């Protein structure tokens, strides 16, 4: 499986570390809403199809990435910096999909 890192370009999946489900929304640190915390920790969509994920390019530029991966085919339809990234690094910007 290849993941197209927005900085490094296409790299083998062995260079990346899965950082979890990208759909979760962490409650405020001081939140006492147990339902929200329960949902954050346990609830997963588990889709058979496109899935939002967070990956880290731990064996490369070490950036955290937002990745959309199809759980049936492993096809990766988009990758982007999780926090926007530095604009100057957008090697694949011109291709329309990052």
């Amino acid at each position, binding site marked *: 499986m290849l993941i197209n890192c*927005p*900085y*490094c*370009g296409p*790299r*083998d999946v*062995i*260079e990346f570390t899965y950082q979890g489900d990208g759909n979760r929304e962490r409650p405020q640190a001081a939140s006492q809403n147990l339902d929200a915390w329960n949902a954050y920790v346990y609830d997963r969509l588990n889709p058979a199809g496109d899935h939002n994920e967070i990956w880290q390019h731990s*064996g*490369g*530029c*070490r*950036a955290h990435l937002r990745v959309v991966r199809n759980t049936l085919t492993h096809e990766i339809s988009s990758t982007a*910096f999780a926090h*926007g*990234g*530095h604009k*100057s*690094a*957008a*090697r694949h910007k011109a291709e329309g999909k990052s």
Partner: protein
Amino acid sequence: MVERQSPLEPVLHAGSHGNFEHGVDIILSETQPGSIVQLAAWPGEEKKLISCIRTVTGLALPDGAGGGSTDGVRSVFGFASGKFTVVDEAEGLASAFAGVVTPAIGTVTDLSHGRTAIRIAGPKAEWVLAKFFAIDFALPAFPVGAGRSTVHHDIFAQIQRTGADQFDIYVFRSFARSFWKALCHASEEVGYEVQ
């Protein structure tokens, strides 16, 4: 300054090795630069950091991810978004950068004692490196001066192409000896010379 000892000393045996009856296709050496520094810009400050690099080293960074340049004495390349490795044969690069890279621009990390620089050169350099790293070493995809961050069996490495058939590899000092041995084994079948 503290005298620096090479972690490769017990295993670096100068001369020709392996299958060299028909000549050597690989030349391995340790470049032992005096300074290896990593610079990181805060978001939005990259241009200022790049101009600091130009001020201190005289090297201009080309646009684009992984871009870099070298003049044979000093080298610079991007290894991550807004982050750069700068190398100088002379010591004192970190203090030179500390004077111009203000806390508002970014950070300076001196890795001179933390990394070992290994140079692999020769017509089969791309071929040998392709055994280790799952990246494209072809000249159009990896131009002279450019840098890449990648891994070798989960161990981090930074690679800069410093010539058409020459690469400088920066590895953790503590892993340098085993990496060097692996590089020698991988070069045996084409014949290699250690300088």
